C-alpha cells in the first residue's frame, strides 16, 4: 500500500491540478485575465441567483374542442355542397356524429370522411356516423400544440433573446420554464396567463345584444360576447372573422388622440387587403376588437381602413406594453395553466449564497481544528486533502455545468463532515495496528489495506441514496443529490489517493521508525 508508482503520483497531481484549473473561474469572478482558463463558472440554481421556475400545462382539451367544432363545420359545409341530407350533427368531447337521411348517400359521405385526412377515423352504425380524432391525430395535435406554445412562450418572455431562459417540454403536455433574474414574477405570469387571440369581427346590428339575450338565442352566425372592461356590457358579434392576430405585422404601445394608453398595430398585406375590403363595405357599422373571447372595444367604422389602426380600451400604460408584446409574439395555440411556481428574488438569492458560504467556511474551520487536535500532523494532512476535496467538488460542478442550489451548498458542507470519515477509518486502523506493536511503516501499510474495503462499502451505500434522490428529486433536491454524489466520489478519491500520497511522501522523507497517532 505504501508503494506508489510514479505514474500514480503523477495521476493524483494531474487530477488536483485539473481541479484547480476548473475551479479557478469561480474564484476570479469574471476577471478578464481569466479568459485563458478552459472552464466555466458554476451554474447557480434559481434559488441562488433569483428567478422564476414555472411548470405549465398546455390545455390540450381546449384545442381539441376547437378542432372538433371546426371539423363539424367542415363536414356541414361539404355535405351541403354535395347535397347530402343529414340530421343530428353533434360535436361531443372526442367525436363528431351525424345521421344520414338517405342510405344512398353513404358512399359519398364515406368519401368526404376519408378526404378529411388520416387524423380521423370514421365509424358507421346503420345511418349514424361517428368521426373520431384517432390516437395518431391526437398525438400529432399534442406535439404541435406544445411545440408552438414553447415557441410563443420564448418570444413572449425573451423577445430580445438575451435572458437565456430554459423552456422545455416535460412529459406529454407540460412545459417547464426557468427564467433567471426576474424582478416581477407577477408580470411573467400575466404574460403567460392569456392566449392573446386577437380578432376583428363585425357587430351584428340585426337586433341588439339585450334583445338576443332575452330571446335566449342569437341569430344564426352570431354570438353574444362579454365586454373586457368592467362595464357589464354585452355585444352581439358576427362569427365571421375579418382579421385575426396572425395577420399582424407589428404592435406597439402608444397613446390615442385623447392621450390615453393604446396599442397601435400594423397589418401584413393579406390582412390589410381583407380589412380594407370589409371596412370599405361596412362604413357606418360598428366592428368589435376581440381579445381572448372578450370585446375590448367596438368602434364604428368611419372610413375604409387598410394597413394600420389602434386598439383603445380601459388600459394602463403597463397593460398596453404587455398587450403589444404578446400581440407581437403571437397567440398561444392553447391556454396555459400554471401547475407550480417557485420565484426567488435576486436579494434573497444573494443572501442565501452569503449565508451558505459563511456556513461552509465555519464548518471547514471547525472540522479542521477538530481533526488537528485528534490526529496532529496526520490530521493536518487530512485537512489538506479535504481542501483539495472541496476544490474538486467545485471543479466537477463547473465542468459538468451541474446546477448548484441552496440545498446543494448544504450538501457540500455535509460532505466536509463525512469526507474526513474515510481518513478517520484509516487513521483509527493505523492506531490499532500501532497498538499491536507494529512498526510505523507496517502499521500505515496494513491500516490502509484493511480500511479500503470498508471505505468502498460504506461510501457505495451512501451513493445509492444520492442516486435515488437524483432520479426522483426535482429542482433544488436534484441539485443536492448531485453535490452529495460528487462529494462522495471526490472524498473517496482524496482519502484513498491524496492523503495516502501525502503520507507516502512524508514516510519516504522521514523514514519514521516510531509513530504517535
Amino acid at each position, binding site marked *: 500500500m505504501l508503494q506508489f508508482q510514479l505514474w500514480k503520483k503523477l495521476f493524483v497531481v494531474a487530477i488536483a491540478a485539473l481541479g484547480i484549473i476548473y475551479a479557478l473561474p469561480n474564484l476570479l469572478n469574471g476577471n478578464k485575465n481569466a479568459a485563458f482558463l478552459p472552464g466555466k463558472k458554476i451554474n447557480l440554481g434559481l434559488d441562488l441567483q433569483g428567478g422564476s421556475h414555472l411548470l405549465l400545462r398546455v390545455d390540450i382539451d381546449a384545442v381539441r374542442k376547437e378542432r372538433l367544432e371546426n371539423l363539424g363545420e367542415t363536414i356541414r359545409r361539404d355535405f351541403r355542397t354535395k347535397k347530402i341530407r343529414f340530421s343530428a350533427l353533434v360535436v361531443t368531447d372526442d367525436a363528431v356524429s351525424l345521421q344520414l337521411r338517405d342510405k344512398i348517400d353513404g358512399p359519398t359521405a364515406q368519401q368526404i370522411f376519408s378526404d378529411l385526412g388520416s387524423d380521423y377515423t370514421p365509424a358507421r352504425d346503420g345511418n349514424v356516423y361517428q368521426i373520431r380524432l384517432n390516437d395518431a391525430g391526437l398525438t400529432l395535435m399534442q406535439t404541435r400544440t406544445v411545440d408552438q406554445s414553447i415557441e410563443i412562450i420564448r418570444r413572449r418572455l425573451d423577445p430580445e433573446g438575451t435572458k437565456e431562459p430554459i423552456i422545455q417540454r416535460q412529459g406529454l403536455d407540460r412545459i417547464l420554464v426557468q427564467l433567471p433574474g426576474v424582478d416581477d414574477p407577477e408580470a411573467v405570469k400575466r404574460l403567460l396567463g392569456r392566449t392573446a387571440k386577437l380578432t376583428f369581427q363585425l357587430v351584428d346590428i340585426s337586433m341588439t345584444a339585450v334583445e338576443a339575450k332575452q330571446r335566449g338565442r342569437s341569430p344564426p352566425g352570431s354570438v353574444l360576447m362579454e365586454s373586457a372592461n368592467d362595464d357589464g356590457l354585452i355585444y352581439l358579434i358576427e362569427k365571421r372573422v375579418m382579421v385575426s392576430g396572425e395577420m399582424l405585422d407589428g404592435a406597439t404601445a402608444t397613446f390615442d388622440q385623447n392621450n390615453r394608453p393604446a396599442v397601435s398595430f400594423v397589418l401584413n398585406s393579406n390582412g390589410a387587403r381583407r380589412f380594407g375590403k370589409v371596412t370599405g363595405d361596412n362604413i357606418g357599422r360598428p366592428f368589435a376588437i376581440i381579445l381572448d373571447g372578450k370585446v375590448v372595444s367596438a368602434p364604428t367604422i368611419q372610413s375604409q381602413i387598410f394597413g394600420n389602426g389602434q386598439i383603445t380600451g380601459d388600459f394602463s400604460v403597463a397593460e398596453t406594453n404587455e398587450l403589444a408584446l404578446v400581440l407581437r409574439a403571437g397567440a398561444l395555440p392553447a391556454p396555459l395553466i400554471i401547475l407550480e411556481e417557485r420565484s426567488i428574488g435576486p436579494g434573497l438569492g444573494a*443572501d442565501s449564497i452569503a449565508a451558505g458560504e459563511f*456556513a461552509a467556511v465555519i464548518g471547514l474551520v471547525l472540522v479542521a481544528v477538530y481533526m488537528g*487536535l485528534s490526529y496532529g500532523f496526520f490530521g493536518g494532512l487530512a485537512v489538506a486533502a479535504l481542501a483539495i476535496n472541496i476544490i474538486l467538488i467545485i471543479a466537477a460542478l463547473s465542468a459538468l455545468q451541474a446546477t448548484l442550489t441552496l440545498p446543494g451548498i448544504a450538501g457540500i458542507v*455535509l460532505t466536509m*463532515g463525512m469526507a474526513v470519515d474515510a481518513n478517520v477509518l484509516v487513521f483509527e486502523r493505523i492506531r490499532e495496528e500501532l497498538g499491536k506493536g507494529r512498526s510505523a511503516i507496517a502499521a500505515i501499510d496494513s491500516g490502509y489495506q484493511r480500511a479500503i474495503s470498508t471505505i468502498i462499502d460504506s461510501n457505495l451505500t451512501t451513493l445509492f441514496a444520492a442516486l435515488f434522490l437524483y432520479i*426522483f428529486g426535482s429542482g433544488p433536491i436534484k441539485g443536492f443529490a448531485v453535490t452529495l454524489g460528487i462529494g462522495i466520489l471526490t472524498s473517496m478519491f482524496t482519502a484513498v489517493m491524496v492523503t495516502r500520497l501525502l503520507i507516502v511522501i512524508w514516510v519516504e522523507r522521514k523514514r519514521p521508525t516510531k509513530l504517535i497517532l
Partner: protein
Amino acid sequence: MRLKLVSSNTSINFLKFHRLAVLFSSILVAGSIGLFAIVGLNLGIDFRGGILIEARHNSGPADIGRLRGELESLGLGDISLQGFGTETDILVRVQRQKGDEKAQIAAIQLVSATLGDDYDVRRTEFVGPTVGAELAEKGMMAVVCALLAIMVYIWFRFEWQFSLAAIIALTHDVLSTIGLFALTSFEFNLATVAAILTIAGYSINDTVVVFDRVRENLRRYKSFTLVDILNKSLNETLSRTVMTSVTTLLALMAIVVFGGAVLRDFAIAMIWGVLIGTYSSVFVAVGLLSRFDIKRNDDDGAETPEYERS
C-alpha cells in the same frame, strides 16, 4: 497530546443493553407511528399544494399583528403568518384554494396586493394540487427504492442476516425521523425527504463500518461467542464512530447557526439523523445480529481477502 473523546481500548458490553435498547426503540417507533397517525405531519406546500410567500419590510420591522388581521380578512381560508429569520422578514402560507389553478394564482395576487409597497416579495412558491400529489408520490418512491437498493447491496456483500438487521435499523431511523417531525410540527417538505434519505445514507454508512469489522472478526476469532465478537467489533470501531459523528455534527451546527433560515430545519433534521443513525447502528443493527443465527463455518479457516467474498 491528542484529543480523544473515546479511549483506544474500551471494552464496553454494548449488548448488555440490548433489551433496554429493544424497549427504547420499540417505544420510539410505536410512538412515532402513533404521532404520525394521530397528530399527523405539518405537510408543506410541496405535498399539500398551496402558496408560500416570503417578504421583507423595506423600512424597519414587520408589523405582523396588523398584517395578520388584514390577511385573515381576505377570506382565503387558513393563512399563517410568521417572522422568518430576522424581524423584517415574514413568511405567509396560504392553504390550497378551492377550485382550479387559476384560483391559486388569483390568491397570490391578492396576498401580494395586501402586502403592498411596504414589503418586497422575496420568494413566491405555489404548488398546484396535481403537482403536489406527484411530488409526494415521487418522494415516497425515492425513500423506498433507496432502502431496497441498500438492502440488496448489503445482502450481496454480506449475509442475509446483516441485510435484514441493517434494513430494520434504517426503517427505525426513517420512522423515528418522521415521528420527530410529527412531534415538533416542523414543516415536512421536499427538503425533508432529502434529509431523510441523507440520514439513511449516513446511518447505513455507520452500520456498514461496524458490519465490516464483525465479518472480519467472525473469521479471525473462531472460538469467540457471537456476542463477544459483536462487542469486540463495536469497541474497536467506537472511536471512529464517535469521531465521524462529531465532525459531521460540527459541519451541521455551522449550517444551523449561519446557514440561513431556509436551511435551518433541514440541518436540524440531519442532526437528529446523525444521532439516531449512530445509536441505531450500535444498538439496533448489531443488537439484531446477536439474535440471528449467523453461519460461521463457511471456510477452511484461512483468511481470505474480504473483497473476494460475497
